[in-house]
């Protein structure tokens, strides 16, 4: 494998990891606050649809992004309403939202565009254009680092950089702010937070709102950044892989970046090579694609360290009277 191939695979890895990363951080906020969110897939899907649909209708990708994020936030609020206010089962609410997104997106698309549940192809301003980082052109001649910067890191859409910046931002918010401390506490021991006079409900609602925002960005990236339009079920399980990445990263932001890059890398490799030829035996493509799930199971089984979820995850908080 030569250097150029590595750069190209790196480039592809970043593109493929971005939606995973946004969804993974979304899940991180939600689950750290004690709200399990299996509905990431549905939120990404509904955002992918609304951002593509509004972008197609108005010709502006920014209005599309706004609509997509708004849709995902509304879905988050429904999830919050069911699991925080009404103390329902968080898994059931999440699964229901996934089904709702899957059906609703196609139904509305068919009604507006009559193209079999897809939006028209987007072009021009209705899509995110690729963004060149400063000095990308000038630095491309520098050996090794030049191509890494100008070919691998530069030339992605703005959402890719937003996703990458969201990692330190998440770390800062969670571990260096008062809000973050309380958020983590509410996921571990909501009773203690309540005793301290802080509203558990408000914190958890804050977390699911951030979750909606981030997963909305992820969905918009799929339909208006990577592809040019919405198609039925276009998230293709990325929300679930993001959940796997979250477990793999043991609910920590920097590790989440690592996990998403690893999973993106595995996808990029399987796209690039039909099978991987190790001298003694050949690894089939399907195995590489299954690796993220296998790794997650290995982690969950406790072979490599232990993955301990936030203690209060999945249990609605009932205030003592």
């Amino acid at each position: 494998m030569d250097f150029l191939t590595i750069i190209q695979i790196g480039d592809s890895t970043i593109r493929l990891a971005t939606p995973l990363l946004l969804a993974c951080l979304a899940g991180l906020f939600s689950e750290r606050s004690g709200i399990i969110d299996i509905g990431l897939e549905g939120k990404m899907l509904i955002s992918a649809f609304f951002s593509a649909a509004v972008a197609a209708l108005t010709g502006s990708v920014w209005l599309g992004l706004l609509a997509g994020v708004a849709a995902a936030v509304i879905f988050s609020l429904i999830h919050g309403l069911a699991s925080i206010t009404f103390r329902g089962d968080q898994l059931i609410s999440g699964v229901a939202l996934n089904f709702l997104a899957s059906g609703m997106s196609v139904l509305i698309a068919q009604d507006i565009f009559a193209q079999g549940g897809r939006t028209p192809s987007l072009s021009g301003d209705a899509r995110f254009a690729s963004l060149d980082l400063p000095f990308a052109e000038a630095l491309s001649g520098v050996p090794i680092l030049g191509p890494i910067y100008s070919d691998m890191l530069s030339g992605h859409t703005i959402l890719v950089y937003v996703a990458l910046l969201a990692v330190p931002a998440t770390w800062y918010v969670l571990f260096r702010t008062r809000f973050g401390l309380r958020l983590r506490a509410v996921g571990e021991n909501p009773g203690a937070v309540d005793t301290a006079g802080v509203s558990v409900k408000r914190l958890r609602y804050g977390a699911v709102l951030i979750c909606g925002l981030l997963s909305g960005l992820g969905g918009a990236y799929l339909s208006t950044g990577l592809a040019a339009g919405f198609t039925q079920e276009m998230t293709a399980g990325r929300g679930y892989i993001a959940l796997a990445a979250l477990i793999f990263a043991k609910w920590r932001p920097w590790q989440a970046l690592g996990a998403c890059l690893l999973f993106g890398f595995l996808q990029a490799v399987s796209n690039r090579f039909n099978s991987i030829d190790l001298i003694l035996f050949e690894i089939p493509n399907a195995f590489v694609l299954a690796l993220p799930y296998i790794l997650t199971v290995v982690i969950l089984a406790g072979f490599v360290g232990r993955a301990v979820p936030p203690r209060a995850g999945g249990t609605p908080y009932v205030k003592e009277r």
Partner: protein
Amino acid sequence: MTSMSKILGAAATLALSAGAALAEPGLIIDLGGKFDKSFNESAYTGAQRWVEETGGDYVETELQSEAQREQTMRRMAERGANPVVVLGFANASTLEKVAPDYPDTNFVIIDEQVDQPNVKSIKFAEHEGSYLAGMMAAIASETGTVSFVGGMDVPLIRKFACGYAQGAKAVNEDIEVIQNMTGTTPAAWNDPVKGGELTRSQISQGSDVVYAAAGGTGVGVLQAAADEGIYAIGVDSNQNYMHPETMLTSMVKRVDNAVYDAFEAAEAGTLETGLEVLDLESEGVALAMDENNEDLVTEEMRTAIDEAKQQIIAGEIEVHDYTETDSCPVEM
């Protein structure tokens, strides 16, 4: 009240008699959807043309999942549709089971052969059309590398790939042909994001012409090709209009004609069961030439393709069909 029930009764009788008299043709649109801009859409267009030209009526349903195949086929037959046209190789095993239960109904299956007395099987010589597409790609390529993106990894799609590779190698023996399949489940027909990513990966390996035989996934392939400024070749329907600057051509499979002819033959009572292969000679497969790609098609391409087409029809060039041996004679 009594008058109401009379009206209802009359309506019911009317509905019943309408049901019995129904001998309209039926069309079951396959997974991928009516507007996949490709295989299913082509069938739909054929049916629509038949409606416009004959003023006839037909019944249509669209599959939503793999599990509905048998149920939908049976319901269509029980409603009295004749013939029932099903699209795609994935229906073969179901049809094998359903067809004997409805001996008075004729079935038409496209893309696969089912040996039942009341089934007409229509297959296309995709390898021949893809061969011509491969030739055109090889002539257009400047890098000496061309590529192929398939949908679900099945013999039929490998048939496209193999014909394409043979055509490319016929023009330039040293040309490299990269081949990627999107997946191994029916979801592979509907993943434009992955299609685009596969295309970018092929471009980074030097490909400057990509041929997509991937249903809805192909939309992403053609889009990525347009974004990166390389040539693309569409499939099944004429997709030249989608990106006029970069669409070299489309390997058109006249599914529309097959559906149209089946409907028409059924109306005239001349539908013959058995196998029919639509090839270059019967214009069942062809390269689409229209105003969208006329600037991209050079004189050299035209002559080479016309010549090869005549030779294939005359049997001077034998294009290998992947599905006959489950292997391809050329390296990919």
